[in-house]
């Protein structure tokens, strides 16, 4: 579990000042029964806990913009059911209390994201108010944020203040007007075309926590370790190579990986004098395997999940 003070933080704008005494979240749009929830209303609703990893879509290979925690919140499907979405409802815009200008040609607007209604209706989708059994710290979205386990972090909107249910035809939302629709897109070149699709589910990935790149070690037996996670399914196995991917050995998984959490892996390495390139590679139960290299057709900076080489020298 990542302690809240070590949990990664990514913001687009300044953190907003929010009073728990006046905060509320409004549910509106293509629904039959709009309503508001105060902090008291929210925390007194039935809640559930989920251990889930949260990763920034732009987290580098072996980057630190990823953390794992136990979240508690109110299932979003329950809130939406109560609002009774209309038959043409397709998306949910989650709007935050922080705001600013993303691009020169855009207005200063609140941070927002659009998530398909179908994803919001999955039981694991939460309006979270606790992290590791404590109320969310301010930097993590106090008093409440969205949480979509298995999806990259940008959709887990912090400092939530509005949930707007939309139809497929509703294009004039803050999400589009702010320019947010230009971010978090996968851009893949195929011939002369560039296909643009929205980033959502977290790609299978592992990172090496030890050793770090450039480490010099006396010979000995070492525990190479790190974490692995995937948005599609639980981690099935992690392999480790110390020879730049020529040979691979299975690492041990610390516990049975949960569907949404990361798992710690460990590999015992008898390091004899020489130069080494350490890599880890994860696979999940959905059949996804971490790629050895970045897809050269990708022209964006997201889903950076290839196996990063770590150089070590042993004497």
């Amino acid at each position, binding site marked *: 579990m990542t302690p809240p003070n070590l949990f990664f933080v990514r913001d687009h704008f300044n953190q907003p*000042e929010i*009073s*728990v*005494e006046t905060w509320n979240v409004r549910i509106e749009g293509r629904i039959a029964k709009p309503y508001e929830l*105060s*902090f*008291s*209303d929210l*925390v*007194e*609703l*039935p*809640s559930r806990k989920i251990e889930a990893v949260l990763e920034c879509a732009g987290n580098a290979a072996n980057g630190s913009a990823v953390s794992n925690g136990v979240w508690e919140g109110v299932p979003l499907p329950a809130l939406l059911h109560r609002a009774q979405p209309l038959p043409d409802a397709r998306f949910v815009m989650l709007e935050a209390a922080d705001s600013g200008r993303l691009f020169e040609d855009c207005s200063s607007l609140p941070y927002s994201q659009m998530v398909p209604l179908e994803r919001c209706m999955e039981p694991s989708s939460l309006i979270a*108010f*606790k992290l590791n059994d*404590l*109320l*969310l*710290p*301010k930097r993590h979205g*106090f*008093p409440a944020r969205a949480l979509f386990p298995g999806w990259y972090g940008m959709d887990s909107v912090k400092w939530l203040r509005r949930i707007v249910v939309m139809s497929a035809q509703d294009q004039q939302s803050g999400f589009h007007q702010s320019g947010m629709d230009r971010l978090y897109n996968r851009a893949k070149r195929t011939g002369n075309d560039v296909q643009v699709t929205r980033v959502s589910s977290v790609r299978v990935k592992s990172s090496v926590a030890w050793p*770090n*790149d*450039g*480490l*010099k*070690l*006396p*010979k*000995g*037996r*070492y525990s190479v370790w790190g974490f692995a996670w995937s948005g599609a399914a639980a981690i099935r196995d992690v392999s480790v190579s110390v020879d730049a991917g020529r040979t691979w050995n299975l690492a041990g998984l610390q516990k049975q990986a949960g569907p949404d959490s990361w798992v710690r892996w460990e590999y015992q390495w008898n390091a004899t004098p020489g130069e080494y390139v350490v890599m880890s590679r994860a696979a999940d139960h959905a059949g996804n395997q971490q790629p050895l290299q970045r897809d050269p057709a990708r022209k964006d900076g997201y889903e950076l999940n290839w196996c990063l080489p770590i150089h070590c020298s042993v*004497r």
Partner: protein
Amino acid sequence: MNLIGACRFIAACASLLLAGALFGQDCAHPDLNPQERLSRFHDLDARAQTAMQQKRFTDAVELYREATCLAPESPRGLYGLGVAQAASGDFLNARESLRKADHIQPTSPLPLAMEVRIDFSLNDMDALKADLREEAARFPRDAQLHALLARFLAEKKLVTLALAESLRAQQAGGADPDSKAQLAILENAVGAYEDAIRNADALEHRTELSLALRASAAGVAGLSYESIGQRDEAIHHLQEAIRLDPSRENSYLALADLFEQAQRYADAVAVLKQGRANVPASTAFLLPLGSDLIRTEQYQDGIDLLRELLRRSPDADQAYLSIADASRKMGNSAQEVQALRDLASRKPDYPMIHVLLARAMLNGSTVDYPKVLEELAQAEKLAPADPDVFYLRGKVYIATNKYKEAVAALNRSIELRPLESGPYYQLARLYQKLGKPGLAKEQFARLKYLEAAPSN
């Protein structure tokens, strides 16, 4: 609401709840007329209340059961029965009785409030939240009720729900200073620091309020300022809390803690001494003051205070460790070992206690090596992969000329913690002693490599 409060509620219930029409027909005393039944109900009710006050809860249950048999639709009887059943530990039936009382008389918030307490006793958080929602929906303007629930939930450490109820109390118009202070305390506890500061600061400056309440508010403001990193403001408010009410030990402790975090140990000592002078009956100052005296190199004074603490609270583990620490700094190895032995005898499973003891014993002028090895064997039983066990064992074997064993122990320590330089150094020195310069050089080279590598 406590049991006595519950009894008072019952006594205060209007007699209209005892209307003859509510009386059951299939009970004992079928021959009683309505007036006699009413009289009998009153008698049972009074006796049940007496039983409750005397903590004869099983008797109270029986009496209320008989009363509700006479008047099965009486919310007063059912509420009394529910409270008595809860007091006797029969929570499931208590909840059932209270639900019936609530169903019959939904205008009273008390059965639901009592259900919240029972839900907690049953560890049924879903039901507890459902009852809180029901209270919120049916009694949104009852500030007293929500403040009462907030206090109960806070007592039970359900801080988030306590805050929710405290906010409901405020929204219902419960703006009395005590409720406001409670809200500020809860906001500070959950991390809503700006809200806590605003509420506490306002109370702190209201001169018509009691000094104790203002001091409490100043303390909350101080803690919240500390949490948002404004140390100077925090110190100012905590000093004000002490000035307003010098009898509150928490203000001194919080201020000393702040000074400790800033490594201003002399200031911490001064504050804690002031606290001790103003609240002489408190033992809460002994551990931090003893530890801070040691940090300011007033070793003997620190040890004396910590011993005073241990006389009163022998389970204060940290005091043993601090005495050991001070003794080591004073060069009194025997006293260090004794302090650790005292801790080990009370807490044989205390983390690393045997390693600490072995290390302390090795620091003595005359070392009982077999005893050190005994400690290390015990340490290994508790933590078989603790590299310190093998490192210290290696040192013992070197000192007792068991070189082969020493090499094995030091190598095991390296294997368990390869980036620690101590075992390489010991191994290198040992190889030198054994006349194996090649092996010694190899260890020294590793040590140099390890220490020189910037990325390590």
